[in-house]
């Protein structure tokens, strides 16, 4: 069974159709890259998979391990193992990162019928993960993303991904705003999480990221559809020739 199946998905936002019948199949262990021009609907796709309110699905299906994802609340999806690293992570003043992560992890564990992690147990776990991603401890004491630099916000997303150990990770432009060293560290973090039963969907504008995270498949999105799919070489092709050829196809 596929891990994630998006079938002929049509999505409207405020009376305007943004996705016009999008299909994507992701199997365990695979890494898919999605590329495409600004406004082609990449973030919309990731939001709809994760369950953000405000989108109207007018047609199609999203199945997660064969279950209808569209029937589930966002937190249920998260507990099942759907993770979205946001293009624009939000700030939550007054809530320490550490408290946020602890609360979220325990909420997920509770939903899965697992035991709650005590503060010391959690601290141990989060420290290990933070260390492997080169994230300083005192970042955990600060308000969630409050005053974080662009790069720090992205690293905080990867930290959460590593901590929650999801089944499907959707990374929406995790490379934007990262300097070259940070990019390498973040990519290493993502690679460390690659496993035969986990899948990744990496949304990016730049082929460079795919030098670090080598995809099994590359999809080109244009105007709300996947217009071309191929292997990792497709990214190189795009880098050379741009999106123009696909714009016509869409």
């Amino acid at each position, binding site marked *: 069974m596929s891990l994630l199946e998006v079938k002929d998905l049509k999505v409207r936002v405020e009376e305007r159709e943004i996705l016009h019948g999008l299909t994507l199949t992701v199997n365990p262990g695979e890494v898919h890259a999605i590329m495409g021009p600004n406004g082609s609907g990449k973030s919309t796709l990731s939001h709809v998979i994760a369950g953000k309110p405000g989108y109207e699905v007018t047609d199609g299906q999203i199945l997660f391990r064969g279950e209808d994802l569209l029937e589930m609340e966002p937190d249920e999806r998260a507990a099942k193992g759907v993770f*979205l690293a946001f293009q624009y992570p939000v700030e939550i003043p*007054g809530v320490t990162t550490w408290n946020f992560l602890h609360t*979220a992890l325990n909420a997920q564990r509770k939903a899965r019928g697992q035991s709650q992690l005590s503060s010391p147990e959690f601290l141990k776990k989060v420290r290990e993960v933070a260390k492997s991603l080169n994230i300083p401890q005192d970042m955990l004491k600060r308000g969630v993303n409050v005053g974080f630099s662009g790069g720090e916000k992205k690293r905080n997303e990867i930290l959460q991904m590593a901590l929650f150990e999801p089944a499907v990770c959707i990374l929406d432009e995790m490379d934007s705003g990262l300097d070259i060293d940070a990019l390498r560290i973040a990519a290493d973090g993502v690679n460390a999480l690659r496993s035969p039963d986990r899948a990744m969907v990496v949304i990016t504008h730049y082929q460079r990221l795919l030098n670090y995270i080598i995809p099994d498949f590359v999809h080109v999105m244009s105007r709300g559809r996947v217009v071309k799919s191929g292997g990792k070489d497709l990214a190189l092709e795009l880098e050379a020739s741009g999106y123009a050829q696909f714009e016509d196809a869409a």
Partner: protein
Amino acid sequence: MPAVQETVERVRRIDVDQYRYGFETLIESDKAPKGLSEDTVRFISAKKNEPAWMLEWRLEAYRRWLTMTEPTWARVNYPKIDYQDIHYYAAPKPKKTLSSIDEIDPEILKTYEKLGIPLREVAILEGVEPPPGSEPSANRKIAVDAVFDSVSVATTFQKELKAAGVIFMPISEAIREHPELVKQYLGSVVPTSDNYFATLNSAVFSDGSFVYVPPGVRCPMELSTYFRINERNTGQFERTLIIADKGSYVSYLEGCTAPQRDENQLHAAVVELVALDDAEIKYSTVQNWYPGNSEGLGGIYNFVTKRGDCRGNHSKISWTQVETGSAITWKYPSCILRGDNSRGEFYSIAISNGHQQVDSGTKMLHLGKNTSSRIISKGIAAGKSQNTYRGLVTAHRKATGARNYTACDSLLIGDKCGAHTVPYVEAKNSSATFEHEATTSKISEDVLFYCTQRGLSQEEAVGLVVNGFVKDVLQQLPMEFAVEAQKLISISLEGSVG
């Protein structure tokens, strides 16, 4: 209680003249007849065995009250109160006793559970008692232990306070046992003529706390009404007076997070604080009165006058409040910064949900030199509620070097509620520096989605965001109180989204 009911019925049948005539016998009853007159005031005073001076004080307030009109400037709407349709005195009776935990309303039990209040404390708060001569069962055992414990705890506390010289007792007792202190300070911060509700309170107040901390004494524990379990039901017209003598310190906790219902809709409390030279008073409140049902019916009207007088140099008074209950809240804990270098603080969390209306804030009156004040107000409006911050900061002509910092933040949940900020500032001294910051924000869809994407439910997400929003104020509360208040905040916002 059939006896009470009988009395009420009997009283209903007699007209005014007969009532006057029958006054002596009525003294035996537990409840004053409905309505307010000089006789009601006399009745209350007699019930309390008060000395003549106290009765005079009350009567003067009553006569003053007759000349006053109810204020209308606050942003609250409620049907006209019929002051003659209220009982102004009911003997403090124990709550209806229940024989086991099972008899407590399951809804209320649920709230206790969410608050994390242990069952034995629930038993105390809800007045569970074993039936006389009954076989002990598991539940009853809890109740007996709980009651026993609370009494012994209270006694131990009383001993320790006595050793330190701290007076902590019901104000009705203080009037008899420490008349010199009461005479000197009662009404010295909130004069009997102060405002409609305070004046009413002065005429008919039922009971409340009295605290006196002698010079140089640091009160050895946080004083809480919780430990005066027997006098918990001091009724709708509560009166509190706290005096911190030179160089002393006291921290006082009022209210509790447990849900409180009351058959009396109108509440008008007065709290007076006096801090002499170098003294400090920290007053913390958690208010969780019944807010009314989903249509907005039946909640408590809470008209409170709280004022602290930094009478001495270098004195300090700090108010911290967490307001989650009541249908109507009308409350402005204030500081008169009379002493040079004195300091006033106001930290407030005011949450409104459903049909609640909150008009709350503070007044900082800078009279002395180099006085400073700090106001941190966090208003949270959800449902169809209205939440107003109303503040006044003034510097007197002689208040050179007065400083104030005000930060007023409002958070809206949903789009049917309202938040309003009404700050008044008045500096008659050019050296005064007043700073004011105000923000209004909404819990954004994006933030909620971020949280739910990480596995939190909508309600948990709102709770987390709100607790982050109020953090600066929660930190001002004593530790255990803060933990309970945090849970209470989440509970009071339940059903505010989705």
